[in-house]
């Protein structure tokens, strides 16, 4: 699976859908159209379902889940929230102890998904489930829900995009103050990508050098907010935090910068997998891949939709200016060495 393909296809698909207009949200009408299914076409959900939901997306995922619950009054959805990495590890530990509590795992990061899948806990998903996704995004054990790009939000009052190094390795020594959230799953996937691309030694050195000039925040919204109010010059964050902040505060002094063909502009995906082997978890996942949910997440959460027929979020720069690194998404699951590296460097 090639990251660049993912991004290219996602953006291209979105452009193609422009003429159709944005879906009117989850209460949407049925559209007879190829590609992603509409919620109108899906079977109703009945029974009890426990979802482990990776935290970090604020109320937007909650709104999606509430809407699904409203459409399916017979569904009894239990949600366990926690940091994505913690939930992934909990699922693995539970399996080790012979306990299974989660039926569905929705993670904000594909690395955490891979951790569970590599433990052999993910159920194989039926082919027709992923029919709405581009062929490159179809995996046997899990489904990507939305895409996201690693970015460098910067304070526009103090810097221009050109002031920021195009090489992520040069960032800590560029004389800028930085902000990061090392405990956040997407950041850890970014470090994993760096480790795969540049090796553990260089990554450890980079972490140590960055730690000297970086302020730590609890989450990446916090990072972007700190950049906006000028507490730090540049931050590390997924693209949507900045776009969301700017949508609520159009004159916000923050903009996005991208590095060139390295881990700094990694493209990643949130994903979902089924742990239970019956119909319900699988059908539940179908709802997340509908046009309605995908367009809602694109429009409100500024995430990149991965199904056909849904527009990408506003505010992302043109594709020709971006060059994400070529990292196999599935390899991001190798989280343990990354955590050890981060601990070793004293940043976790």
């Amino acid at each position, binding site marked *: 699976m090639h990251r660049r393909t993912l991004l290219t296809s996602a953006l291209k698909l979105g452009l193609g859908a422009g003429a159709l207009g944005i879906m009117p949200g989850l209460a949407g009408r049925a559209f007879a159209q190829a590609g992603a299914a509409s919620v109108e076409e899906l079977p109703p959900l009945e029974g009890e379902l426990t979802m482990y939901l990776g935290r970090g997306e604020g109320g937007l995922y909650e709104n999606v889940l509430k809407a699904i619950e409203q459409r399916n009054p017979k569904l009894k959805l239990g949600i366990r929230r926690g940091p994505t990495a*913690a939930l992934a590890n909990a699922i693995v530990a539970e399996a080790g102890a012979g306990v299974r509590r989660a039926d569905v795992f929705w993670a904000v990061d594909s690395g955490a998904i891979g951790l569970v899948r590599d433990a052999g806990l993910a159920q194989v998903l039926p082919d027709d489930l992923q029919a709405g996704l581009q062929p490159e995004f179809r995996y046997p054990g899990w489904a990507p829900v939305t895409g996201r790009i690693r970015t460098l939000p910067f304070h526009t009052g103090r810097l221009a995009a050109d002031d920021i190094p195009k090489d992520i390795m040069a960032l800590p020594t560029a004389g800028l103050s930085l902000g990061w959230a090392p405990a956040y799953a997407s950041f850890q996937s970014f470090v994993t990508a760096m480790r795969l691309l540049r090796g553990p030694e260089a990554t450890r050195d980079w972490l140590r050098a960055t730690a000297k000039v970086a302020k730590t925040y*609890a989450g990446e919204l916090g990072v972007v907010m700190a950049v906006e*109010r000028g507490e730090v010059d540049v931050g590390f964050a997924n693209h949507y935090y900045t776009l969301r902040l700017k949508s609520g505060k159009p004159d916000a002094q923050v903009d996005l910068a991208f590095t060139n063909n390295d881990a700094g502009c990694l493209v990643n995906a949130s994903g979902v997998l089924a742990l239970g082997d019956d119909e319900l978890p699988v059908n539940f996942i179908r709802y997340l891949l509908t046009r309605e949910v995908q367009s809602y997440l694109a429009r409100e959460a500024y995430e990149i939709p991965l199904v056909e027929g849904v527009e990408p979020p506003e505010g992302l720069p043109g594709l020709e200016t971006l060059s994400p690194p070529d990292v196999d998404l599935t390899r991001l699951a190798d989280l343990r060495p990354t955590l050890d590296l981060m601990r070793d460097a004293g940043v976790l």
Partner: protein
Amino acid sequence: MNRWSASWPLAGLIALVTVAPIVVLFDLADAPTGLFEARNLGLVANTLLLTAITVAGSVLVGVPLAMLTAFVQLPWRRFWLVLLVAPLAMPSYIGAFTLYAAFGPGGEIENVLGFATPRVSGLAGASLVMVLYTYPFVLLTTRAALLGQDATLVNAARSLGTSFWICLWRVVLPRALTGIAAGALLGALYALSDFGTPAIMGLDTFTRVIYVEYNAFGLGQAALFSLQLLVIVGLVLYLESRVKVTPERPGRCLQVWPRRGRAPLWLLPALPVVLLAIVLPLAVFGTWLWREGAEGFELSYAWNSARASFLAAVVAVIAALPVAHAAMSGRAGRLFERVTYLGFGVPGIVMGTALVYLGLKLPFLYQTLALLVLAYVLRFLPLAVGTIRSTAEGLDAGVVNAARVLGAGRREVFRRVTLPLTMRGVTAGAALVFLEAMRELPATLLLAPTGFESLATYLWRVYEAGYFGRAAVPGLMLVLISGLGLALMLSGERRAEFGVFGDNRP
């Protein structure tokens, strides 16, 4: 005193359950390699520094305020005392959260008042918060010691020409040292086990790193850190048990009458403390409530908190009765009681880690309300035991003897005389456990059943997600609950451990 009491087997069993989490930690603890040694030293240093600064700061703030409230005859004395003790009842993570959000560039103070303030974070920030919320320990214990001092010594010194301030330093303070030490050690214990403050201030102490390790499911490493933290806690508990307050010969306490109109001047130094510890959190939550309303908040969070805490209170009281009874009937019983006090010293994050592991071993308990309630009971049992025991001990022995003389057996006396008379203590103990459990954060974060969101965990969630404004309603509710707890503690002061109004003068 009888040799064998019926309550011993039960009390012994309860004591055994109390020790279980610590045993579990030993089973669980393992470290991958010696990789983390340098980091470990940093952890120990951070934790000890925070504790030391907290102790020093709380003594510097608490002792003068203790003298103020003990000696100076101000109008509305009780009101000032209650106000100055109030931070004790607030969970410190509320303070940390609001201070963090209020100060610094772009903070609420700059938003509302328009001038920039330095950011409150790191070791300095965590220390500030800890001092603000632990000085009342020192205030209370020191004040009790001061009120027990006979003023004739001071008068003698004064008549021999010593100035008033020198008197305080050389005659009054030395005699209050044990009281100060008792409060300072309580503060140290609090600083060691607090999770929310270092986590919010971004200071790597044991509690914060245990949470990070738990999240990366380095349970073995988390358990190892937990045991290391318990060693330090054990040391403080030992020191505390060595502090014996020896009562002086009773006498009239020193009284200072401020000149007419000068009373506000005496209170002025306490103003910043009250502003930061009480007014600021309320103001920040109030601002958020006004700006964002109750968005995102659901009443079920409060209901969940109340339900789990109520169960914990009921179970704790039921478990406390045999322990309290055993403690009053012989040496072995007292030992059992001492053992149940262990839970009080186990930080919430450590208790959570141990019980998660216990749950994985006993799947029928995993992610159940029962396990969460068990965590609350283990942690707060000593509160119930303490209140029940001190109420029971305060009973007039003559009543019991009369019942015995009239032919009632020990059991009947307990059931028909002692227990009804102890009911006030039972209720107070249950209420204390209830209120503590309502505010508990770290163990709840780890042990809450799926779909269970409490006031404290919701507050934590909006903090982590960065939606600070949504903390207004749960924050204010937690402050309100804390206020109730304070009222209860003060009304039950004759029985409670911290005698607020230690003065028995009319």
